[in-house]
C-alpha cells in the first residue's frame, strides 16, 4: 500500500525539489541567517531538538502513566463485562433447557396417566352397560315368556269355549231337526272336525 501512496505523493516531492534547488544556494550563502529555507537554518536546530525531545518525553510520560492505562482499564472492564454477560447468558440458557426437558417429562407423564384413567373409566362404563343390558334382556325374556303362556292359555280356553259352543249348537240343531239328542256322539263329531281343521 505504501508503494502506491509514495507514487501518489510524487507531486509533493516535485514541489519540494524545486524549493530545495531554488533556495539552498541562498540559505547556505547567508549562513542560514535569513531569507533561505527556514528548515536549513542550523541555528534553530538546537532549540528544536531540545524542545522536541523534552516535549516528547513529557507526552510519553503523560500517555504511558495517565491516559493509556485509564483507557486500557475501561476497555478491559468492558471486555470482561461482555464475557461475563455471555457466560451468564449461556448458563441461563442451559438452565432453561433443563427446565424444558423437565416440563416435557412431566407433560408426558401426565398424558400417560390421563390415558390410563380414560381407558379405566371406559372399561368400567362398558362393563356396567353390558350388565344393565343383560338384566334388561333377562327381564324382558321373562315377561315375554309369561305373556306367551298367558296367550297360549287364553287360546286354549278360547278353543275350549268354541268347542263347547259348537257342540251345543250342533246338539241343538240335531235335536231340533232330527230329534237325536246323543251328546256323546255330537261331541266326538265336533272334535273330529276341529281336529281336521287345526
Amino acid at each position: 500500500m505504501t508503494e502506491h501512496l509514495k507514487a501518489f505523493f510524487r507531486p509533493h516531492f516535485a514541489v519540494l525539489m524545486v524549493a530545495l534547488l531554488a533556495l539552498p544556494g541562498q540559505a547556505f550563502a547567508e549562513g542560514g541567517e535569513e531569507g533561505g529555507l527556514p528548515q536549513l537554518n542550523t541555528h534553530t536546530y538546537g532549540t528544536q531538538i531540545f524542545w522536541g525531545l523534552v516535549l516528547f518525553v513529557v507526552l510519553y510520560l503523560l500517555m504511558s502513566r495517565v491516559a493509556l492505562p485509564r483507557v486500557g482499564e475501561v476497555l478491559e472492564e468492558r471486555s470482561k463485562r461482555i464475557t461475563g454477560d455471555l457466560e451468564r447468558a449461556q448458563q441461563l440458557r442451559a438452565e432453561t433447557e433443563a427446565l424444558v426437558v423437565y416440563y416435557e417429562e412431566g407433560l408426558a407423564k401426565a398424558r400417560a396417566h390421563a390415558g390410563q384413567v380414560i381407558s379405566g373409566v371406559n372399561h368400567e362404563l362398558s362393563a356396567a352397560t353390558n350388565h344393565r343390558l343383560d338384566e334388561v334382556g333377562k327381564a324382558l325374556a321373562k315377561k315375554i315368556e309369561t305373556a306367551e303362556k298367558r296367550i297360549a292359555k287364553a287360546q286354549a280356553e278360547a278353543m275350549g269355549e268354541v268347542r263347547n259352543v259348537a257342540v251345543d249348537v250342533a246338539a241343538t240343531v240335531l235335536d231340533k231337526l232330527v230329534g237325536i239328542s246323543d251328546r256323546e256322539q255330537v261331541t266326538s263329531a265336533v272334535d273330529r272336525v276341529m281336529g281336521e281343521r287345526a
Partner: protein
Amino acid sequence: MAGPIEQFEIVPLVKLPLGLDYTNSALWMTLAVVGSFAVMLLGMRGAKTVPGRFQSVSELLYEFIAGMVRDHAGHKATPYFPFVFSVFIFVLFGNALGMIPWAFTFTSHIIVTFTLAAMVFIFVTLLGIYKHGLHFFSLFLPEGAPLALAPIIVPIEIISYLSRPVSLSIRLFANMMAGHTMMKVFAGFSVSLGAALGVAGYTVGILPIIINVGLVGFEFLVAFLQAYVFTILTCLYIRDALELH
C-alpha cells in the same frame, strides 16, 4: 504578502540561554502535547461501559494503535505500545494542528522529524541488542543467504538499515513542507492575480482558490496518512528488532 516559505520561520517567543529559546515551534509542540492529552483524558472523564462521543474518540485512537502494534509489531511488542502511541499522537497532532490557519507545523521541519526518527532508530537498535545481544547483528545477513555473498549483502543491509531514519524523517518533513508550500503558493497566486489584473484578476483568481479547497482536503488526508506511515514503519522496525526477520 508573505511568501510561501515564511510560514516555516522559527520565531523565538521566550529567549533562553544556550540557544534553547522557547519558539513558535515549541509552542505548537506544547499544544500538541496538551491537546492530545486533553483528548485522551476528556473522553475518559466519568468513563462508561457504553462510550459517549468523546470517549469513543480516545478509545478508537487507543484501539487503532493497539491493533497496529499487535498486527505489525507482534504480541511481544505490547510493552512498547505507549511509545508507539506517543509517536503516533505527537506526529498526528503536529500535522493536524498545522492545518489551522496561522498555525505552525513543527513536523514540516527536517530537524524535528529527524529527531523523532533518530529516537525511533536508536530505541529500536538498543532494543534489538538488549533482546538478542551480538546475535542482533545477524539482521545484516538474511538467513539462507550464501556466505560467499556476505561481502556484498552485509554492506547493503547496513546501508539500508542506516538509511531508515533518513527516509523516515524526510518522508514526513517533505510531505508536510511540500503540502503547506503548495497551499500557500496557490493562495498567493489568487492574490497576485488580483493585484496584477484588478477585477479580471480577482475573477480568474477564483480558480486557484477552488484548487486550494481540494488541496486542503488532500492535506488533511496527508496529515493523517503520514502519521500513520511513520507509526507503522516504527512498528515494523520494532518487529525486526524483536524477531530478527
